[in-house]
Structure formats: structure tokens, C-alpha cells
């Protein structure tokens, strides 16, 4: 009894103190919420007439992407790292926003020799690096030599293109190509980040490590970088072109799509870009406080790979049967809700030079179970002697819905009654090891292009000297020859050759293209300037958010 009285008194005091603390904390919180320090928003001037809207000083972009290596254009090869570089630097050519058209950027004009192996390119005389030193042709040539000499992951993009380059004067570059490549092919490669000029006076002949980057010519420069947390860009005062309306861009990294979605819903960030799940997108489209901006997607395209050296995929009939059974529409409608992806019937995406729906022409756009059964029976399989397969996927790298996609493919193949599929998965490092060591025979992959040319969608997959990384083991000398030929041909002939390639590889079916996803940015309503086009470049320098 006494114990209880003692406890009662103690309890009463304790509870009273806790309530008092809670009241104090609530009061402080409410005070702080109402007395927030003024944000860094630009406020309108009250001394001049309100003629032009003012813009937010900082736009915050949230993403689940990460920078895999560095922000050195000679080494960067991941989407986010490259995209940031594409906002800090420029090349001789660039894609016009909203189009697939390559236009002059640092280049002013160019001439091509009759044999198509020598280009003379005149460059701008007013371009300056971030330290305001002028760019010359010597700087461009030095930069290309740096990239090729360092020979990091993406160096081959210009290393396989350029034999040598020299500056004829301060503003003229002569480029000797290794082969007489087709004009748009050359421009596409010279527009890549690896060909961006860097300031030779401040750039070392070694890869620059975080948290630094190089002095380039672009609308933004790197202000701060906390690896794994954020990157802060500020406007480059020496940029020759139009100054961005937004002074600062903060790219904040999130660990998962859920956190990213919550952040944009709560207004903690201005834009969420890469990668939200289709279900999240569907909900956010219906949120009246946000806008969802869509664009054509070619990164990644998704496909199914077979190791054609391994049974049963060394039998073309089996590969073709699977091609007849794949139900792309089921994947699009179920996982991508009928609107966030498009079925893909060629490894050359829709919108690219020479794209042809070869798989659709041969196998149709709906499953043909009877035809598949016929081929499987010819291959020696039937309802009593079934074909047992393993389908591998990696759960995190591409989309959160990967397990659902694998389940739909399994269902499609088993609809034949002759195939049984086991689903297997592994994290990326293990997955990559498994197909590198050829321990798996059928697996799902995605492709992010290096540059926007159809060659980058045929050569890495079907050319026997270039597809070794994929371990598909597909070797077709006719296809090799056609691939080597098409990059040297004028456009009209090139298109015909690309058609031929797509027809042959669709018939051989070592790889089955599945779908291409769109790009989506979810943003606050006051954010403008979001342009998502086929270049896959998210141009921060076009973004702005009006404030009243």
C-alpha cells in the first residue's frame, strides 16, 4: 500500500513533468513553423512595377539514381553522372531541346572532305571556360587527347571514331576519322560528354576524383558535392549563352522510390526524376497539387537474352517459339498500367533512324500459342516431355516491378502447356557474374544508350566482335558485315541496311526486345521548363519556378 502511495506521488510528478515538456515542445514547434526564417526565394522588388515574374533561386531535384564513378567526362558512364556533366559542359554539337535534331553548339560550321574521312570544324570564338579563359581549337584537341589517353570506360566513343585531330588555328579543328563514317553518326559521337572540351590549364592528365570535377563550358558549374547525399550546381558566370533563370540546382539523392515520392508529395523537393514505380506514377497523375511531365523513353529499352551456345537455346526453334509466346501487352497493361511504356519489336527503338517492327512482322503483336507449340514439337518437346527453363532477373536495377514482369513472362511461356519456367533472381553484382561466367541461359536486361544512333542499338548486341560483353554468343557473319557497312553509308542506304539487319536478327532471335519505358518527371505546379525528349538529357538549365 505504502509502495503504491510512493509510486503514485512519483508517477504524478513524472507524468506532470512529461506533459509540461510536451507542451513546451509543441509551443516551440508551432512558433518555429510560423516564424520560419525567410527562404532563399527571390522576393519581388517593391520599388519597380511588377512587370516580370521572379524565379526561385534554387530548384531541388530528387532522384534514386546515384553517381557511380566520378564527374570527370573522361570517365563518367552512369546516367546521373553523365547528365550532370551535360549541364556543366557542351560539345561541338548538341540535340535541340524537344527534338532529335543535332545542331551546332560549340561548332559554328563544318566541311567534310569528298572521301568523308576529314572534317574541318569551325568553333565559336566567344566560348569561355568557368575561369573566363577563352576556349580555342587547341583546347578541344587537347581534351580529346586527354580522354583517349586516359582510356577510361567511355573513351572508345571517340577513340574508335577519331584517328587524330589537330588545330589549324585558334578556331578551326581538323579531324581525321578512322573510317568514312556517316555524317549524323559522327555528329552524334562528337555530341557525347566524352568529347566536351575541358580547360587544359586546370585539368590534370588523370581522372579527377570526388568531390571535384573539371572546368568546362556550360550553363552550370559544380559548387558542392557530398557523395551519396547531394550535388549543388550554380550558374557559370562566364558562360557565353543564355543564363539559366534558376541560379542553383540541388540534386538530392534518395534511397528508394517510396522516399522520393513522399518528398515530392510533401513539397520537400521541386521535381522527382528517376525512378518512381508505375503505381506511384498512376497515383501522382491524379494528384491535383502536382504535375507529371512525360517524354519518350529509350533508356532503358528492355529485352530478353539467350545464351545461344547453351541448350536449349542453341536451337533456333526454341527461341522462335518463345518469341511467339511473349505477351508484351500483358506487361505494358499490368505493370505499366497501359500508359507508361510501349511494346518494342526491335532493338532499334521507335523514333530512331531505320527502326522497323521486325518482331511484330514475323511473330505478331499477340501470343500465337499454336505456332509456338508447333515449333516446340519440332524441337522435340511436348506436353509429356516439357521444356524446363530458368528465367533470371535482377530485382532492383531497372524497375521495382521487375518480379511482376518476370511472373508475367513465366505465365506467357507456360500458357503453351509445353514450357515450365522457374523464376530466379540475384542482386546486380551476382547477376552480372552469373551471365559473365555463362552459368545462366535466359535473363532479362536493359540498355542505356551511349549515344543516340541506331548503331548503338545493333552493334553491341549483334556484332560478334562487340557483343562479347553480353555473352549471348551470337555470331552471324552476314549481320557483322551489314553492321560494319551501315555506319559508312549515306542515310537512305543506311536505313535499308538497318532494315535488313533487323529482319535477320528477328528471325534468329538471340535476343527478344520487349518494351521501351517513357521518361517521367513529377513536379510542383509552379515548375516550368521540364523538357523530356529522345536525347534523354534532363536539361536543368531550362528549369525555372515562378514565385509571386
Amino acid at each position, binding site marked *: 500500500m505504502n509502495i503504491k502511495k510512493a509510486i503514485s506521488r512519483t508517477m504524478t510528478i513524472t507524468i506532470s513533468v512529461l506533459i509540461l515538456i510536451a507542451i513546451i515542445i509543441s509551443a516551440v514547434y508551432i512558433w518555429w513553423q510560423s516564424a520560419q526564417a525567410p527562404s532563399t526565394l527571390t522576393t519581388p522588388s517593391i520599388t519597380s512595377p511588377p512587370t516580370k515574374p521572379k524565379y526561385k533561386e534554387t530548384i531541388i531535384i530528387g532522384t534514386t539514381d546515384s553517381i557511380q564513378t566520378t564527374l570527370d567526362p573522361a570517365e563518367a558512364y552512369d546516367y546521373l553522372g553523365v547528365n550532370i556533366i551535360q549541364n556543366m559542359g557542351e560539345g561541338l554539337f548538341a540535340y535541340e531541346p524537344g527534338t532529335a535534331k543535332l545542331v551546332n553548339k560549340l561548332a559554328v560550321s563544318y566541311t567534310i572532305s569528298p572521301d568523308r574521312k576529314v572534317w574541318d570544324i569551325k568553333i565559336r570564338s566567344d566560348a569561355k571556360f568557368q575561369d573566363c579563359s577563352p576556349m580555342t581549337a587547341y583546347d578541344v584537341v587537347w581534351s580529346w587527347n586527354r580522354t583517349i589517353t586516359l582510356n577510361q570506360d567511355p573513351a572508345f566513343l571517340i577513340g574508335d571514331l577519331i584517328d587524330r585531330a589537330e588545330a589549324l588555328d585558334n578556331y578551326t579543328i581538323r579531324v581525321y576519322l578512322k573510317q568514312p563514317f556517316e555524317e549524323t553518326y559522327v555528329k552524334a559521337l562528337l555530341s557525347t560528354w566524352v568529347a566536351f572540351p575541358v580547360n587544359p590549364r586546370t585539368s590534370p592528365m588523370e581522372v579527377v576524383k570526388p568531390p571535384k570535377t573539371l572546368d568546362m563550358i556550360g550553363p552550370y558549374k559544380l559548387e558542392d558535392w557530398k*557523395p*551519396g547525399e547531394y550535388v549543388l550546381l550554380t550558374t557559370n558566370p562566364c558562360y557565353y549563352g543564355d543564363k539559366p533563370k534558376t541560379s542553383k540546382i540541388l540534386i538530392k539523392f534518395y534511397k528508394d522510390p517510396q522516399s522520393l515520392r513522399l518528398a515530392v508529395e510533401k513539397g520537400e523537393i521541386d521535381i522527382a526524376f528517376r525512378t518512381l514505380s508505375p503505381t506511384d506514377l498512376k497515383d501522382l497523375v491524379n494528384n491535383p497539387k502536382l504535375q507529371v511531365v512525360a517524354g519518350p523513353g529509350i533508356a532503358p529499352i528492355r529485352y530478353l537474352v539467350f545464351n545461344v551456345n547453351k541448350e536449349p537455346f542453341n536451337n533456333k526453334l526454341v527461341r522462335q517459339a518463345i518469341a511467339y509466346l511473349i505477351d508484351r501487352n500483358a506487361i505494358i497493361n499490368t505493370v505499366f498500367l497501359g500508359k507508361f511504356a510501349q511494346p518494342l519489336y526491335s532493338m532499334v527503338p521507335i523514333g530512331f533512324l531505320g527502326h522497323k517492327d521486325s518482331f511484330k512482322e514475323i511473330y505478331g503483336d499477340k501470343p500465337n500459342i499454336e505456332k509456338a507449340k508447333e515449333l516446340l514439337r519440332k524441337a522435340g518437346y511436348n506436353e509429356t516431355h516439357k521444356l524446363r527453363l530458368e528465367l533470371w532477373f535482377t530485382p532492383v536495377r531497372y524497375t521495382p516491378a521487375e518480379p511482376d514482369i518476370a511472373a508475367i513472362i513465366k505465365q506467357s511461356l507456360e500458357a503453351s502447356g509445353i514450357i515450365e519456367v522457374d523464376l530466379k533472381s540475384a542482386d546486380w*553484382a551476382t547477376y552480372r557474374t552469373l551471365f559473365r561466367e555463362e552459368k545462366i541461359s535466359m535473363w532479362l536486361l536493359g540498355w542505356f544508350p551511349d549515344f543516340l544512333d541506331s548503331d548503338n542499338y545493333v552493334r553491341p548486341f549483334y556484332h560478334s566482335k562487340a557483343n562479347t560483353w553480353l555473352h549471348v554468343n551470337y555470331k552471324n557473319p552476314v549481320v557483322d558485315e551489314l553492321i560494319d557497312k551501315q555506319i559508312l553509308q549515306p542515310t537512305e542506304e543506311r536505313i535499308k541496311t538497318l532494315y535488313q539487319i533487323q529482319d535477320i536478327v528477328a528471325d534468329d532471335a538471340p535476343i527478344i526486345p520487349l518494351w521501351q519505358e517513357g521518361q517521367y518527371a513529377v513536379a510542383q505546379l509552379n515548375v516550368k521548363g521540364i523538357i523530356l525528349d529522345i536525347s534523354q538529357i534532363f536539361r536543368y538549365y531550362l528549369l525555372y519556378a515562378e514565385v509571386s
Partner: protein
Amino acid sequence: MGEKISLKTYILSRILITIPMIFILLTIVFIVMRALPGDPVSMLEGKDIPEEVLARRRAELGLDKPLYIQYISYISSVLRGDLGVTALEKVPVAQYIAMRLPATVELAISSSIIAILIGVFLGVVASFFKQKYLMPLARIYSSIVFSIPVFYLGLLFQASLGVGIGLFPTGGRVSPLNDIVLSEAPVRTNFVIIDSLLVGRPDIILDFLSHIILPSLTLGIYLSSIFARVTYLSLQEILSQEFVVAARSRGLLDSIIIWRYGVRNVLIPLTTMAGLQIAALLGGAVLTETVFSWPGIGSLVYEGILKRDYALVQGVVTIYAFIVAVTNLLVDIIYAYVDPRVRF
């Protein structure tokens, strides 16, 4: 005098034991990481990077050398105080840890305070109030809370208090704009409270507190179930002993009995438990950090494992082993202070 020499000897012996313990742990992690399929360069694959470039990267990381050479090379660099650099980004591991460890320390301290306050309070209540409506509730609380997966608890708080009522932010450590402000601190300690004062923006502390509440509540409530249970059981045992009956019969006030005999004796097992929990929290709470995008070392080591970044994982484990050793030593010292009977 005898006690002081004894404690000093004890501390020295614990330090000496810690060194081989860390190396055994490093060896185990070294072997386990390399037993996993893949290596740091695997993260770059999936593009048509020339094989010779990938091979060169592997050579630069020493991955082409025999395992025992890699092991010797790594141990000798650790002995020189060099934890190496991350495989692909080339960020010094020590720098990465210095960036992320303060966030883990902040979360560990705040969640421990919540865990201890709630846990001890409920344990004392359960022990003394034998009325049906209270005691079963406290026991049920302990069982239910501990069986809820911590990430689910986090998601619940996030959905209700973060999104539903909108009281608190749902993730991060400070608002993104305040990240920029803190980056301007003349000296970055990476402790938000200190950096906020260094940049002359104490208001950022409140922003930070609003961000830390949900992850701290998540971990704190989850761990409070352990403290509640330990407190309850310990108090039950202590208060049923004869010396308590004797003290009561001598006319000592109940409040004195409880605080001098009850709670003080409970401090011994509580200290041990608190020490172990804090040490565990300082290793990073991976699930909570992921749910709330809290940039601590728990999520750092998880990322390192996924990326097969050997240097990063090994570096974090080294620091963690050191933290555990120091924390356990401090617990023992506090133990001796709380219980004069303890001798070494």
C-alpha cells in the same frame, strides 16, 4: 589505491584484447566479401565497356592478385591508418565514414534516450502496479512492439505522422535548402547542431529535430520493449528479496526503498543492456536509415555490400569494431561506478 591500479590494468588489458579482435573481424569480412559473387567492377558491367578497360580497373584495385596478397596489402594499409578508397568513386573511405558517422551517432543517441525513458518508465509501472488494467498492458506492449518489424513501424509512423497528419518530414536529416547552408560552415563537423551554430543559423537545429523525431521514435519505441522487459524483471527480483522486506520493517520510507535499493540495482543490468544497444545502434540501423533516408553508416555499409565495395565495407566494419570495443569498456567502467562490489 588498489582499486585504481586494478581498473587501469583492466582497461589496458581490454585495449590489448581489442586489437586482435578487430583483425579477426576484418579477416572474416575480407573472406566473406570475396566469397560473394561479383566484385566492385561488376557494377560497371552491363554496358559495352571494352574488356581491357574492365581488366585494367580490376588490376588497379589489385583484384587480379592472389587473395593472400590482397589480404596482406589491405592489412598493412590498415596498420598505416589508411582505410583505402572506394572502388569506383575513389572517395577515401575514412572521409565517407566521417561524413556519415555523425548522422548515426545523432540517431543512436536520440533513439537511446527515447528507448530508455519509455522502457524504464513502463518497466517500473509494470512492476509496481499490479492492478489488472495496467500490468498486462505493459507486458503486452513489450511483446507486441518487439514483434513488429522495425521497418514496418517506421513506415507506419511515416504514413501517419509524416504524411497523414503532416506533423513531421518523412525523410532526410535537414531540409534540402539547409543542406546547402550547412555546406558553408567554415569547418564541417557533420554534426548538424554544431555546424548550425558554426554558420550562425541555430534555426536549422529545429529543422533537424523535426527530421530526427520519426526515425528516433521508430527505433526508440522498438528498443523500449527490451528495456521495459529488463526493468520489469529486474525490479521484480530485487523487490522480492529479503533485504527489501527488512528495510521496510525498519520503517524506511517506500520512496527511499524504491530509489536507493530498487532502481539503483536495476541500473546494473540496464547499463549493460544500454551499452549493448547503443553499440549496436552506432553500427547503423540499416532498415530505419533506408525508410527515412537517414544518411548514416548503416545504409552506407549496405550500399557497399550491394556494390561489392570491399574497402568501404571493411573500413566501416573496422570503425564499428572499434566503437563496440570502446562502448563495452565504458559500460564496464560505469558498471564499477554503479556497483561498488564490482572488482576487476
